[in-house]
């Protein structure tokens, strides 16, 4: 418990420090937020373009689709805020030797790698998603209040799932010399979770619910709010999946670090 409190305080300090540095150049930060928002708006317009014209998709109405897509931006936005160091971990930390510095400090190395820098502008995705959900809720007759109340927490679990999956892929660079990695195709799998899982074949559903559990990050969390009884067991399994993948991720990082030999630079 003490360790958790210590890390939470440290996270707050890391974040505040980074935000201060970033906000020192206000106009530039504003430009970054604007660019990020334009990207989100472009992806979202595809959904709006298609589903406002054809308001039913495999039994889902237009506001429900907007709800799903809007929700998917919450865990995705949170993930984007903290994941920037995972992408070039192998290059920045292992090859350039920054990892030695990390190991010298009495704080979890994975914690440091994740929180050394943030992509602050991705918080706009969280805000955009929240606005979309708000719009959808105003159009939907009976959204479960409990389901809505739990959404933020489930979004955090979703972000934990994303971070853990990409953390696992990143940890592979402790073993594999060729640093290409499977991250890009897996990253693209995230977009599958933005649409109702009922449009996919069994093999895709299985993939998204097991090995790469993205359906637990962005589709199943909406089941309670949207009153989709058939997915409720999966909804309640979301925290378990998040914890399981997080533990797996931490364990793999431990083993990777045990194996790590410095480049000596």
């Amino acid at each position, binding site marked *: 418990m003490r360790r958790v409190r210590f890390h939470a305080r440290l996270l707050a300090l890391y974040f505040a420090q980074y935000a201060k540095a970033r906000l020192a150049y206000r106009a530039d930060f504003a430009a970054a937020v604007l*660019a990020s928002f334009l990207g989100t708006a472009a992806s979202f317009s595809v959904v709006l373009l298609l589903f406002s014209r*054809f308001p039913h998709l*495999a039994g889902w109405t237009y506001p429900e689709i907007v709800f799903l897509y809007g929700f998917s931006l919450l865990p995705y936005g949170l993930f984007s805020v903290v994941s920037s160091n995972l992408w070039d971990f192998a290059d920045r930390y292992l090859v350039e030797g920054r990892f030695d510095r990390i190991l010298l400090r009495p704080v979890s190395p994975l914690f440091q790698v994740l929180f050394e820098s943030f*992509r602050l*502008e991705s918080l706009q995705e969280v805000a955009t998603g929240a606005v979309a959900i708000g719009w959808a809720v105003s159009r939907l007759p009976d959204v479960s209040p409990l389901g809505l109340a739990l959404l933020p927490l489930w979004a955090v679990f979703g972000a934990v799932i994303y971070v853990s999956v990409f953390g696992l892929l990143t940890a592979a660079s402790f073993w594999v010399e060729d640093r290409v990695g499977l991250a890009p195709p897996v990253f693209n799998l995230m977009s599958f979770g933005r649409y109702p899982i009922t449009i996919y074949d069994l093999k895709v559903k299985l993939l998204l619910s097991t090995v790469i559990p993205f359906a637990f990050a962005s589709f199943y969390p909406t089941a309670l709010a949207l009153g989709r009884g058939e997915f409720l067991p999966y909804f309640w399994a979301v925290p378990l999946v998040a914890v399981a993948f997080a533990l797996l991720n931490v364990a793999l990082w431990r083993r990777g670090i045990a194996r790590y030999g410095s480049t000596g630079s």
Partner: protein
Amino acid sequence: MLATALSSARPYLAFARTSFLNILAYRARYFVGILTYFFNATVWYYIWRALFHEKGEGATLGGFTFPQMLTYVATGWALRSFYFNEVDRDIASQVREGRLAMTLIKPVDVQAMTLSQALGESAFRLVLFTVPIGLLLVLVYPVLPPVSPAALALYLLSGLLSALLVGAINFCVGLVAIRTTSILGVLRAKYLVLELLSGLLVPVAFFPEPVRKVLVWLPFLHMNDTPGRLWLGLATGADAARSLGLQAAWVVALLALGRLLWRATARRIEVQGG
């Protein structure tokens, strides 16, 4: 005349060749890339399948039948794997890191050099990327063949123009992006916006009328919508000629814009003593 043209083109061929060889060193990246493109096309296969399913057997959406739409998606992603380049990131990082000085001392035209590198990369992608992705998509999904040999020829020509167009656009984007400190953020936004405006995700026929009227006067649709319609035979004869003409005109116009931006940027760099 021809001899002079050929000898002045020689250094650029060398750049294209070096670029080709450089990528050869990162082959594994391309095998992973094939999966990425396959997943992207796949998610759209399912979305369109569900939408067409709602409308019933044999329905058309925006003038497309389901097999046509699927073909549009497959030819579109295959083409993206060909025209994709990182000219923008490259030029921006050269300016940022001061490596541009090394480029400036070479007795060549920077824009022509950058574009030949991009085309060299595209030649590589065609062989190890576009063709395997195309084959994979044809094997897995019921993709339609081009409606005629002429349609195939026009698609290929248009695809080549797309690569030039994207190179010209990215050169401009890179020069604009260096004016911010979050270059990567700007470039990431560019990808998402262009995926929408190029017609890669949704054909222009699905946009609302007022938006469509604006889009046809912009260059972006020529990245995907134009070649896609040529393959499917949705643009033939005079319509096809007009589309290709516009596409070529945009290439020329954006290359000219790139030169202007380059001149403005190069002047600033010299002032800084770079």
